[in-house]
């Protein structure tokens, strides 16, 4: 299963108060991620599969797996559209 991770070059981020604030410096574009998205973001910093991300959401929040899968898919689509991800 392929791993997905945050883009290595030009992407800077920090966790602040449970949220993630990030900068795509190549595009001079800032992002913020709410606590659930921040959980996924942090997993992606180490590299994770889609199943890993769904597992992380289910472990942290009391949500049905199908809902978590849909949320992870939507999150990854948004991240990919912004060029923030790499696939190993």
């Amino acid at each position, binding site marked *: 299963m392929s791993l997905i991770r945050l883009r290595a*070059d030009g992407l800077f981020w920090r966790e602040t108060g449970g949220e993630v604030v990030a900068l795509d410096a*190549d595009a001079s*574009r*800032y992002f913020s991620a709410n606590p659930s998205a921040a959980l996924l973001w942090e997993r992606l910093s180490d590299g994770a599969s889609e199943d890993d991300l769904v597992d992380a959401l289910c472990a942290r929040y009391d949500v049905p797996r199908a809902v978590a899968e849909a949320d992870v898919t939507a999150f990854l689509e948004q991240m990919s559209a912004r060029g923030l991800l790499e696939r190993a």
Partner: protein
Amino acid sequence: MVLRSFLSAGEREWIEARLEDASFHEHKIEATGKTELLMEPNGISALLLFKLNDPEMFELVEAVTGGGPIAFFRGRTYRMVPDAGHFSPWHDDAVLDRIAAFTINLSPSPFEGAKLQVKSAADDELLTEIGDLEFGDAVLIEISRAYQHRNSPLLGSVPKTSYAGFFYPGERSPLAGR
């Protein structure tokens, strides 16, 4: 207060690669008379703004200076070129409710002169002089009418590139979180 290696090795490498393509234009700061080349906004500006608008950075500056609360940081990247008429006169920056000044050395190659000097405004006594900054080192400067600072003349042939700005009170930067 000097912060050695304020920029990480990765940040220095990222910045150095992009400095070569950065655009600068002549600029004069009317309030102080300082002349320099001012960098057009780019990814370097965005990264340094991101780094300085960090709540942990705000807490550090508040603890060191006793000022605050800090709400945001604003800065610019500038370059001084030898024999180009660029100079930094004595000034105190004590306007607009500024809490502290901060500068980062962005010069990948060592330059000569341009030492950061601080003097007493009352009697012109030179209080400190910092001339050993390496690429990525930073300096936090107290703002007070009691002190003035400047860069001594830039010598040699290597330009000096720096990021400099101020911590302010007011409406909190969204980059600093809620």
